[in-house]
């Protein structure tokens, strides 16, 4: 089920939390929302889940609009809200049964569905405990279980791995990747590595507007105009190497990283590569090239560049 968001605007008072945002998510796609605090991630997700009514714009699930068919749409959504609110005084099993009933799962199937979720989310040992007695990580699993219990076509996770330990994070990411193959998934996070690891597509939001949209490679290219290399050359005199490097046509800037080790940082001119030329130069002068590493632009840098003013 595709999600189509058109010109979504949500105001709180005079502040525009989400400002004229349009995007589309296809079935089988995992979309990651990135953005600093207060960028409008949660508001956008709340509008998609019908929790908040937009001031302007429409949201469609396939052909269904949230204004005309909210009840129909809600059946297809599995939602894990921010901070994972749950009924603390309810036992896990009872809570899952309550959710299954609300989702209209047939009576005969409720039990097997609950057991499947308990198994999938690793809640076997905790299923009879009250939710309030569980650790944060286990509560997060209960939140995931309630979102997945009716096998929804659309999954919306607001910071799904908050409060989990590293092992659990890896598990949840795997789970999301697995689910994401057949379903439409939108997740938000401010952990960049997480978005990079789980999402097919990344959208960066800042101050209610989309500032970047694409795969993580595309986003990197977006800011990475110039090639940056780190090289180390042995058996040569450092000043001589420095001058020789500067003479290469494609090289724009040469800088010492460590004078004692003869390592340099080389920035090439836009859209040019100096790797071959450096290698050839070393052969000609009989220097030993011991290191040549391209610096990758990190998603962190992209993020910082786009969201800092």
């Amino acid at each position: 089920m595709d999600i189509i968001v058109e010109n979504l605007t949500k105001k709180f008072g005079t502040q525009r939390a989400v400002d004229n945002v349009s995007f589309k998510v296809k079935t089988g796609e995992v979309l990651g929302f990135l953005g600093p605090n207060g960028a409008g991630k949660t508001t956008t997700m709340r509008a998609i889940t019908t929790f908040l009514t937009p001031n302007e714009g429409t949201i469609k699930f396939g052909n269904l609009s949230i204004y005309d068919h909210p009840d129909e749409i809600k059946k297809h959504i599995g939602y894990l809200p921010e901070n994972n609110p749950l009924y603390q005084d309810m036992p896990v099993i009872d809570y899952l049964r309550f959710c299954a009933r609300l989702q209209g799962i047939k009576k005969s199937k409720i039990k097997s569905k609950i057991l499947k979720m308990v198994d999938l989310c690793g809640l076997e040992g905790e299923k009879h405990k009250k939710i309030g007695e569980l650790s944060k990580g286990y509560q997060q699993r209960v939140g995931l279980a309630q979102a997945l219990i009716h096998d929804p076509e659309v999954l919306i996770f607001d910071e799904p791995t908050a409060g989990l330990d590293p092992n659990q994070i890896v598990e949840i990411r795997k789970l999301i990747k697995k689910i994401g193959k057949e379903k439409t998934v939108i997740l938000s996070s401010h952990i960049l590595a997480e978005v990079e690891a789980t999402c097919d597509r990344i959208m960066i939001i800042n101050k209610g507007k989309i500032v970047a949209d694409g795969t993580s490679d595309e986003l990197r290219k977006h800011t990475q105009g110039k090639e940056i290399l780190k090289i180390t050359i042995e058996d040569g005199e450092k000043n001589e190497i420095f001058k020789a490097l500067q003479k290469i046509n494609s090289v724009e800037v040469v800088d010492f990283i460590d004078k004692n080790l003869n390592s340099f940082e080389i920035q090439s001119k836009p859209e040019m590569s100096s790797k071959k030329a450096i290698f050839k130069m070393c052969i000609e002068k009989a220097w030993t090239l011991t290191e040549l590493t391209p610096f990758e632009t990190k998603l962190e840098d992209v993020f910082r560049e786009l969201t800092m003013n």
Partner: protein
Amino acid sequence: MKQIWIISRRELQSFFNSLMAYIILVTFLGFSGFFTWLFGSDVFFVKQASLQSFFGIAYWTLFFFIPALTMRLFAEENRSGTIELLVTKPINDWQLVLGKFLSTLLLIIIALVLTLPYYITVANLGPVDHGAVWSGYLGLILMSAAYISIGIFTSSISNNQIVGYMLALFIGIFFQIIFGLLAGNLSGFIGSILDYLSLSTHFESISRGVIDTKDLIYFLSIIFIGLVLTEGNLAKKRI
């Protein structure tokens, strides 16, 4: 209808899990039993086989207990954020409001059913006006429904349960007694309006055994207005 029942069931479960239900049942039965049988103008004092004293006591105990039951219903959901999960499930605001309303009404009905032994005992002591007893119970149920509806509305206003409780009592006390007192002092048009607004007038006429459509309309409109305002409050939070 199914969704309403699912919500009610969870709320009832929560009442019983949190001991709230037991506390309310025990204190309600304790209070009403004490004043019906042992103290004040009890059955033996008035020397009549009637449940009038019980209805008088229940009228006041329910007035104080009902806000204690309803204060949690929406305030807690708002505070903990569970309302977000609830309204994004396939359920609409009306089903949610009615479900919560029904759960509390059912708990009150359970409490009233448990007082049926009083009726049976009194009926064995002397000739009882059976019609008056049943209409008295009906009056209690209608009055409870009206206060539940007010209580649910005040609970939906803030995240704070105590605010919900105090506000419900504040609004309730006007219907319970203040309109009646004012109506006694004022004459003419305003007096008759206040008399109509006073819940005790309607409750007394029903508990005497006279079921008038005028009284039924009165209770049903309070219930309706309370629930409409609650629904409005829920919708308002999402705009």
